[in-house]
């Protein structure tokens, strides 16, 4: 099995698993009056780890799956999540952020794009709901809650995808040094 196929299978399983866990488990817990939503976090994490192409495909697939399972207007979540996955992948390409707390910022941004983008699209589609303080509060609470859980979600996604990801050069260097492969002391 090629590396790309391996990665594709893992991404597909991640997409399906995340959507099912979100719908079957996470969405049933209410914290601060809102539900956590791990799907934008998973899409953002996948984009950050695999790049914009894979990230956008994961986003589209996950969004479409959500639209299908929740019997929503098809394409709304797919469009928003595609942009999230692509944006996270571009962030990896352009900045290659290595800070420990990058997933926090990414989680907040991904959730903000997901919630605000979804609301905007629904308004554009003519959903008869006023822009109320309740909606703004709910969006803010969801962003805060998702930011809090973004680190463990990112860690889980990275753990799941790591076997299929190209080896990180820094990690390879570190391991080689540890085993003496590149140690300057071992060279004669």
């Amino acid at each position, binding site marked *: 099995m090629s590396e790309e196929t391996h990665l594709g299978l893992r991404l597909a399983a991640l997409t399906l698993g995340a959507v099912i866990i979100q719908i079957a*488990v996470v969405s049933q817990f209410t914290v601060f009056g809102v539900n956590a939503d791990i799907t934008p976090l998973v899409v953002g994490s996948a984009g950050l780890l695999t790049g914009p192409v894979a990230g956008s495909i994961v986003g589209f697939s996950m969004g479409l799956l959500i639209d299908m*399972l929740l019997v929503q207007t098809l394409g709304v979540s797919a469009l928003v999540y595609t942009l999230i996955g692509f944006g996270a992948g571009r962030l990896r390409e352009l900045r290659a952020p290595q800070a420990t707390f990058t997933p926090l910022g990414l989680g907040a941004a991904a959730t903000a794009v997901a919630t605000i983008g979804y609301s905007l699209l629904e308004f554009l589609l003519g959903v008869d709901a006023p822009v109320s303080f309740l909606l703004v509060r709910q969006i803010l609470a969801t962003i805060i809650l998702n930011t809090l859980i973004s680190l463990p979600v990112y860690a889980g996604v990275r753990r799941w995808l790591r076997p299929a990801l190209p080896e990180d050069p820094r990690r390879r260097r570190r391991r080689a040094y540890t085993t003496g492969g590149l140690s300057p002391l071992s060279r004669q």
Partner: protein
Amino acid sequence: MSPDLGCDETSPALRKLLRDPPFHVYDKTVRRRRAVLGLLVALSLILLTESFGDRTGGGLHSVQRGFLTVLSPIEDGASRALKPVHDLFGWIGDTINAKSQRDKYRKQLQVTQAALIQANAAVRVNAQAAATLGVDQTYNLASDGPVTATVNVRSPDLFNEEVGVGRGTSSGIAQGDPVVDGDGLVGKVATATSNEAFITLINDSTSGVSATDNTTGAVGIVDPTDGDPDTLTMAYLGAGDIVKQGDMIVTAGTVSTSTGLAVSHFPPNIPIGRVTSVDSNDPGAGVHLAPMAKLHDIDVVQILTKVPGA
């Protein structure tokens, strides 16, 4: 690495060509990335348009329903498999919720208890005030210049049986004035300032009240009982005086200045206490009585400011 063009790479022409190419090079990755994004966005918009325009049911909705039919067992299975996790989080949430509710109800209970205590205190003070005001008529004290005062200081120890009231010399109160409440004799003013007075209760070790048995007429002095602030002792009874259990002991009051007896601080016939026991071996010093006034629970008193001899 520069491409192999079959010529010398150090030639100025080639270097210029590499540095400033006459055409734009589109990297394959970039093109692929843009194509994928454009395709997915376009697909989303097509789906959105079709789905939105076909809300009543159609091809897309059939696909959606079919997909839901296929995936719902998986979703249901996952929900069942993850039920323990769900229950765990539900239990945690319920516990936190129950704790917050418990704290809320505790606070409500505290507030209610505080209000109840205040209400009970108000009822008690009102009852005492009404009884104290009625003392004027009951014991004909109107001519003794009664001044009603509220107790605001209580002695913190058992050695000094004193209370303080918020009235003083500015209200006509002076040292030695007798103090009563609705139940009977309380004590006398020990010291008074312009706006405050301290009252020595009748169970204080320095107290002594000339008293008489309201039934038999026996005369004596009511003193505190050592070591028992809730009991008084009637002593110095005359020979042949009889005091019986249950008799009411009242103040002897000012009897006469012509007899040579000291003028009492207290007006006559104010209840002091009821005899609880009489020691048959020593009736002269073994008469014990329970004070009528609730000396540990006084809120309102009347200070008699115009008693002769006070």
